[in-house]
């Protein structure tokens, strides 16, 4: 036993005193770590961007969609206060490309543009008593003012704004305490970590400011790591969390788009009381709105049946060969 070896050392020797002091400090540190909960949070909010506090929200107007529509995909900007954002611009760009690729080829969708991270900035709150913001300050008003400019620059009709909220939770357990004091912090995994990621996409018609549909995706990544590895593991989990949540988001976006198309065929965005929606074809005439994009996809049942037929054919061939 390691503690037994410690008891055998002579307390009067300088080495023993030093060892005792080191151990005491380690125990104190471990005890502190044991009670420590570390949290990293990364978030952006489309709601905060589009409807900031202090700015009156304008009601949405009726929607006119000219098919095929042009869609822009962007991340809602991050408030600078969230300085522990592990979600880098290059990661965001990759995930935006994934979402854009999922949209491309969809029914009624003409082009999908990725709006690079950093193009959108949070509008500043209006100064008390009115007046223009200081030079170089973020734009005043709601996010739609900026989206109008992005619409003109990128030639888009709709914008899909993606928000995210990732919480990384780290707490040390008993095993971590033991190895911190005796063996070392990096030998055995003892720290439990959990990363929870929620991604949400809202699709707006920019001219009318109407929310057409939204979808969300989430993921939970949990694993153990040595305390010394915590930062590296948390970074990995952060990436993994965003990847998995994006996959979930893309699947749910497809479902939401299909539901919106069915709903829009009835004439309103989300039922009675919501803005009316009209869909026009490239010729400017109203579309029928009841057609679907079809797929002749071989599924698991056909694959299993084909495997069965292959087996039967080979068996038949073998029987025929035996009879000859």
């Amino acid at each position, binding site marked *: 036993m390691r503690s037994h070896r410690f008891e055998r050392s002579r307390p009067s020797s300088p080495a023993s005193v030093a060892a005792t002091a080191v151990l005491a400090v380690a125990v104190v540190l471990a005890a502190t770590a044991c009670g420590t909960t570390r949290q990293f949070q990364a978030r952006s909010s489309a709601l905060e961007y589009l409807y900031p506090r202090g700015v009156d929200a304008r009601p949405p107007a009726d929607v006119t969609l000219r098919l095929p529509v042009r869609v822009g995909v962007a991340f809602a900007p991050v408030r600078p206060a969230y300085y522990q954002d592990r979600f880098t611009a290059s990661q965001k760009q990759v995930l935006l490309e994934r979402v854009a690729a999922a949209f491309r080829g969809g029914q009624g969708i003409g082009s999908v543009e990725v709006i690079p991270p950093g193009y959108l900035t949070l509008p500043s709150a209006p100064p008390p008593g009115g007046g223009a913001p200081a030079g170089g300050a973020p734009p005043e008003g709601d996010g739609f003012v900026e989206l109008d400019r992005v619409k003109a620059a990128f030639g888009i009709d709709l914008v899909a704004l993606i928000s995210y909220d990732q919480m990384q939770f780290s707490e040390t357990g008993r095993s971590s305490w033991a190895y911190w004091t005796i063996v070392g912090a990096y030998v055995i995994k003892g720290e439990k970590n959990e990363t929870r990621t929620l991604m949400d996409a809202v699709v707006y018609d920019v001219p009318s400011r109407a929310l057409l549909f939204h979808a969300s995706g989430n993921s939970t990544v949990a694993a153990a790591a040595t305390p010394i590895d915590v930062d590296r593991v948390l970074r990995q989990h952060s990436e993994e969390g965003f990847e998995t949540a994006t996959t979930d988001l893309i699947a749910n976006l497809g479902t939401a788009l299909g539901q919106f198309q069915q709903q829009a065929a009835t004439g309103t965005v989300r039922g009675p009381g919501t803005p009316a929606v009209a869909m026009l074809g490239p010729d400017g005439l109203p579309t029928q709105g009841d057609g679907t994009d079809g797929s002749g*996809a071989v599924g698991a049942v056909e694959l299993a049946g084909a495997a069965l037929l292959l087996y039967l*054919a080979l068996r038949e061939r073998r029987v025929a060969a035996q009879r000859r």
Partner: protein
Amino acid sequence: MTRRVPWVTLVFVAAAAVRALVPAGAAALEYDRAAVAAGDFWRPFTSQLVHWSGRMAVADLGTVLVLGTLLERRSRRAALLAIACGLALAAAGLHWLPPPVTRYRGSSTVASALYVALALDLGRGARSAAVRGGALLAVAGLLAKTGFEAATGRALFAGPMPPGVEVLPRAHLLGGLGGAIGWLLGVSAPCAAPSGPSWRSS
């Protein structure tokens, strides 16, 4: 089963695979309701060569390759007629049956036609009750699956589709029906030469 090279199947799969590797050109081959109405009569047939995703292309073409090779080695005539009848029926159903389809892509019509024709051919020429039962089970499974999809409007085990794209059960049903008709024509025609186990006298 003879050793003949399944040229029809190989040409179809190769053409669709090359098309899948070249991103451009899919829009010119897919079924597009408006374009067909404007005179692009080939689109219901060439839509079998284009797919919505790489995963879909692999699943569709892999199935066509296996089933087509098996059937064509037994009877090229039956394979050709099954494909032709399946395509003709599915094209008509795609364009004229409700609800309207705006666009369509996928090789599952051809796969369904070959599937049913092969099952019938195996069942007809089988020397054992197990093979006949297995062939019957395969057809029943396909019918049950497409029937469920047609009744509920939900795709069964079809994998993810791009946004707004739905699996079309009628393509499978009509493809399978065409495959059965094509196979019947193939085996009942006076000029049909015995070429596989189903035509051999035991």
